[in-house]
């Protein structure tokens, strides 16, 4: 281009990258996953709208277990540590991850928090994500399963409006079902139908933190999920070893 002197003309070169912009997060998430596997801890990424009943579900879980099983929790909060304080009062060793303006947890935030919380003693580590139906869904944290708390008061169309989150959910806990008698317009079948259109393998538990309905089923689901993941890990070891 510089025809006069021909000195160091820049060239425009194309660089093919073809890599996900989440690759860095995904690598950290895999690292977290290895930590969890090494300790035999099952991590659950609990997502949902603000006020959908995520903290209440964990409180009810701790109350039902009544110390029979060790739990731990991380809770993502924009500004406060109120949820972590509630969970600690419920007997769950907890740590708050203050995200400031970020609307989701990411794998690095979780990794840093793992250095602060004695999660290794727990059997299940619950990660209560920031209340938001969009952003948390795209960041892998290293969890074994994604669970979405969806309350019966949120509107039947939420799964259809936020398909990214619901299509990645392994389980939806339909919360606050004790309120149904007061909600003549809400039909639980309509919510479940919307879920079936966004979840390839719809799995729904109807629950209430107030009456305790569904909490035993939720505990059985957690047990089953852990048994499955342990079985998969064991068969993986056999393959890797052979």
């Amino acid at each position, binding site marked *: 281009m510089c025809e006069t002197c021909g000195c*160091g*003309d*820049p*060239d*425009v*070169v*194309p*660089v*093919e*990258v*073809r*890599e*996900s*912009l*989440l690759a*860095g*997060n995904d690598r950290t998430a895999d690292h977290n996953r290895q930590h969890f596997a090494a300790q035999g801890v099952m991590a659950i990424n609990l997502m949902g709208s603000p006020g959908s009943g995520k903290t209440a579900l964990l409180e009810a879980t701790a109350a039902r277990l009544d110390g029979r099983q060790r739990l731990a929790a991380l809770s993502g909060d924009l500004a406060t540590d109120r949820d972590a304080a509630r969970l600690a009062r419920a007997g769950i060793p907890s740590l708050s991850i203050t995200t400031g303006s*970020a*609307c*989701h947890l*990411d794998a690095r935030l979780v990794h840093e928090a793992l250095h602060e919380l004695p999660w290794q003693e727990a059997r299940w580590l619950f990660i209560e994500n920031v209340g938001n139906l*969009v*952003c948390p*869904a*795209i*960041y892998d944290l290293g969890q074994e399963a994604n669970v979405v708390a969806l309350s019966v008061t949120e509107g039947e169309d939420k799964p259809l409006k936020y*398909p*990214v*989150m619901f*299509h990645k959910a392994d389980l939806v806990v339909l919360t606050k079902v004790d309120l149904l008698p007061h909600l003549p317009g809400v039909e639980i079948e309509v919510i479940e139908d919307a879920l*079936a*259109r*966004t*979840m*390839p*393998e719809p799995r729904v538990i109807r629950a209430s933190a107030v009456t305790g309905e569904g909490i035993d089923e939720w505990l059985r689901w957690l047990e089953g999920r852990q048994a499955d993941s342990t079985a998969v890990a064991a068969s993986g070891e056999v393959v890797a070893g052979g």
Partner: protein
Amino acid sequence: MHEYSIVQSLLDRVEAEAAARGATVVHRLRLQIGEMSGVETALLRSAYETFTDRSICAGADLEIVPVAVRWGCPACGTDLPSGSALRCGDCGGPARLTAGDEIVLERIEMEVPDV
């Protein structure tokens, strides 16, 4: 607004590629953004404009190629029509997303000084 975090990852990646080649200016970026990726193209653009202002990407064109959602059956390989039930019509197995969740940096065009 995780679009800001996405733009931050984009900048980190472009800066690393540019540094590796001694590039000084970036002309153009091409991304693939799936319709089920959870990323809003309009929000991504405005985050890009705000964030890249004083970076190596300042003034660089951002091309965003949308990717349509596709569902398929992992068991038998059948493609499922979009908008249908998320079950395979042939074997009844659960569908999987086969395209449409991309948040991918495809290509960077940058200016590299002649040696």
